[in-house]
């Protein structure tokens, strides 16, 4: 058992474990100390000096986030000296921060703004710090960095390095010319940044935002010639309610569907349809590799941050990555071919808008190879290269989608709710769980079991694959065939499994990798804040939705069955190969 010590906080005797920091000890004893740069388990830069406390006998005030508790310590958290020092530091920070809060992306979710208010800052006694206006980094198609709004807390640097092991950004310069940047200020697009946007989620200010696409979507919706359809990722329904003040863990599927229809989308479809389709293609790919002794382990390919990570850091193992496109991209390709043919629409007039919990999806949609529908129609309609179009035209984050809904004046909370449109809105429970870490694996196993054995799978819940643990492993008995599988969420965890694959000693047959902690429900497109408690609630919502679905195995999806019957013929067939599968780019290898 951990050693306990006794100490006094604000005059009250109390006990705590000897390994704690002063901040943690105070939190455990119900005392809230304001923090800004501190982020549990991620960032301990001690950069902001907001969490100051007074310790009896110490000359200076201490930063509670990095000070360890000691036997007999007497801590004061609420003295005039402490309050004044915290305020002073806050005012110094605010003196160098832009004051355009009204038009800032993070207007409603800015930690700096909230903290200033909570600390009772009514004026800033210092003149505005003289700073030259720094240029924005707009190189990335996913993220925008505004160094002028940066308060140098270091959270983004810590998350990029510690949680994702990408290390695309770091501090540069010194003193007043310090900033967070990429190598030679070359911009995120020219770095190893994988566009996961976890930096955006942890940023306490508006210094990192997504590349917005709402203007383009409004324009398309207003164009009578265009047939604008929308697809929504599984994780969005488990989080979008938060943007309208609903508690975390609210399932807002039906309200969301109705709100999107009200916005003017011709059809409201579901990425879950193509998630079921992904399971068919990827499941058959896995079965094929097992039967034909192909390259194993097979690794999932739904998470675009992970794909770019593999291209940079593990180009040698790209052969292990499933050739399946992600559900987002499969949807776009099917909407502009199968659906267009079935309903006699000109593919050039179809606009596919996708709503994602993700910023990396914006990059994925703009990968040059993601023009399969154009390739399909090119000869049939004798199209010129200059008329080429992407399979997915616009990608909006959950936050951006909620902004459209707010801008349109839709009373989201009081909507009665509606269903998705058929056929590309039909889905099973297996597709819902794509939104949580372990879900793609579980969905694949549900189908692989039944296809491989021809028997009915009674127990569809694979509990050992669920939850926030960084790496989860399981051995699944497929009618006597023992299959070892592993699931990783966040890229630093993925790296552990990938090092094994690279060294040729991976014991697994199938690996699922999700870029973001918790899977897509914790993506950078999701409502802010996204912390551990919120992630758990969203995951719970995802599994609730799965349980409520009449069908829970992808191969039972009638719309997917019809798609194969009418169009694709069979999984991994000729048409699938052109429309649903892709290839990867070896990028400059980084160790």
């Amino acid at each position: 058992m951990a050693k306990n010590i006794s100490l006094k906080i604000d005059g009250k005797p109390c006990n705590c474990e000897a390994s704690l920091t002063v901040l943690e000890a105070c939190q455990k004893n119900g005392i809230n100390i304001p923090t800004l740069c501190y982020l549990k388990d991620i960032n301990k830069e001690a950069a902001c000096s907001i969490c100051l406390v007074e310790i009896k006998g110490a000359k200076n005030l201490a930063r509670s986030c990095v000070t360890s508790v000691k036997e007999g310590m007497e801590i004061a958290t609420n003295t005039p000296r402490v309050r004044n020092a915290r305020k002073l530091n806050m005012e110094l920070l605010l003196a160098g921060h832009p004051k355009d809060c009204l038009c800032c992306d993070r207007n409603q979710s800015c930690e700096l703004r909230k903290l200033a208010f909570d600390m009772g800052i009514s004026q800033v006694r210092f003149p505005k710090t003289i700073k030259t206006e720094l240029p924005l980094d707009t190189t990335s198609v996913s993220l925008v960095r505004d160094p002028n709004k940066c308060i140098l807390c270091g959270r983004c640097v810590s998350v990029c390095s510690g949680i994702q092991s990408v290390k695309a950004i770091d501090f540069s310069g010194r003193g007043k010319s310090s900033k967070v940047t990429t190598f030679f200020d070359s911009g995120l697009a020219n770095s190893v940044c994988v566009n996961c946007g976890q930096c955006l989620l942890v940023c306490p200010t508006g210094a990192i935002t997504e590349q917005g696409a709402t203007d383009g979507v409004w324009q398309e919706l207003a164009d009578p010639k265009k047939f604008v359809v929308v697809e929504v990722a599984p994780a969005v329904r488990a989080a979008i309610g938060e943007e309208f003040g609903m508690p975390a863990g609210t399932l807002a599927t039906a309200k969301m569907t109705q709100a999107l229809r009200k916005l003017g989308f011709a059809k409201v479809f579901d990425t879950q349809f193509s998630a079921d389709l992904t399971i068919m293609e990827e499941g058959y790919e896995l079965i094929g590799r097992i039967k034909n002794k192909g390259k194993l382990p097979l690794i999932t390919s739904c998470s675009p941050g992970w794909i770019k990570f593999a291209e940079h850091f593990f180009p040698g193992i790209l052969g292990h990555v499933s050739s399946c496109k992600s559900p987002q991209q499969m949807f776009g390709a099917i909407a502009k071919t199968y659906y267009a043919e079935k309903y006699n629409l000109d593919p050039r007039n179809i606009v596919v808008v996708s709503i994602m919990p993700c910023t990396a999806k914006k990059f994925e949609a703009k990968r040059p190879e993601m023009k399969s529908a154009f390739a399909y129609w090119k000869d049939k309609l004798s199209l010129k290269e200059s008329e080429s179009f992407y399979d997915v035209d616009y990608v909006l984050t959950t936050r951006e989608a909620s902004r459209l809904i707010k801008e349109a004046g839709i009373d989201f909370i009081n909507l009665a709710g509606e269903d998705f449109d058929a056929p590309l809105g039909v889905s099973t429970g297996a597709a819902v769980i794509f939104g949580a870490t372990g879900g793609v694996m579980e969905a694949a196993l549900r189908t692989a079991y039944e296809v491989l054995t021809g028997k009915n799978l009674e127990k569809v819940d694979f509990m050992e694959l669920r939850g926030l643990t960084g790496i989860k492993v399981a051995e699944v008995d497929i009618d006597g065939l023992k299959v070892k599988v592993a699931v990783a969420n966040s890229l630093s965890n993925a790296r552990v499994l990938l090092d094994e694959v690279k060294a040729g000693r991976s014991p697994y047959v199938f690996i699922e990798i999700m870029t973001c902690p918790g899977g897509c429900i914790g993506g950078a497109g999701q409502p802010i804040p996204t912390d551990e408690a919120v992630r758990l609630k969203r995951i719970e919502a995802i599994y609730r939705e799965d349980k409520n679905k009449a069908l829970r195995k992808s191969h039972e999806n009638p719309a997917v069955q019809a798609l194969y019957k009418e169009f694709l013929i069979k999984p991994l067939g000729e048409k699938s190969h052109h429309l649903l599968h892709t290839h990867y780019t070896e990028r400059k290898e980084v160790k």
Partner: protein
Amino acid sequence: MTKVAEKEELGLDKAKLDKIISNYTGKPGSILGILEEAQKINSHKYLTKGVLEYIAQKTDIPVSRIYNIITFYAFFNLTPQGEHSIIVCRGTACHTRGSKNLLDFLINSFGFKEEDFSQDGKSFLTTKDNKFTIKTVACFGQCALAPVVEVDGNIYSRVTTEKLRKIVKGIK
């Protein structure tokens, strides 16, 4: 890659750089030593992007971290330096003993204007003929000898404008 093309990209002799890196392998804090020596073997005393990428690859240190290091220390140069370097200390002690005058003297005598030089600790001026580079540092740690100027690696103490004129003349 041919040897000439390699030299062009790295700005220095790759074999020498490899030797430097291997000399430091396994030593704690090796990156500072590697960067210092790599800068030294470049004929214009600076680090190119190519060299930094190469060092990153060899040492397993991310390029973003290397950029952090070289932009933190005023010692490292990212652009070609003049043949001779003159570094004026702008620390508090030197300032109170007139180092601003020394800097202004240099700026004027090499035909620059004061506004060419922004004192953010990382800026410098190099003469058109690539002969001289004027820089500042925050402190040499030689405050008792203030004001201090470093010329081509030699520290001169209690420098006056007159003394500085002679030193510069000596190397011209």
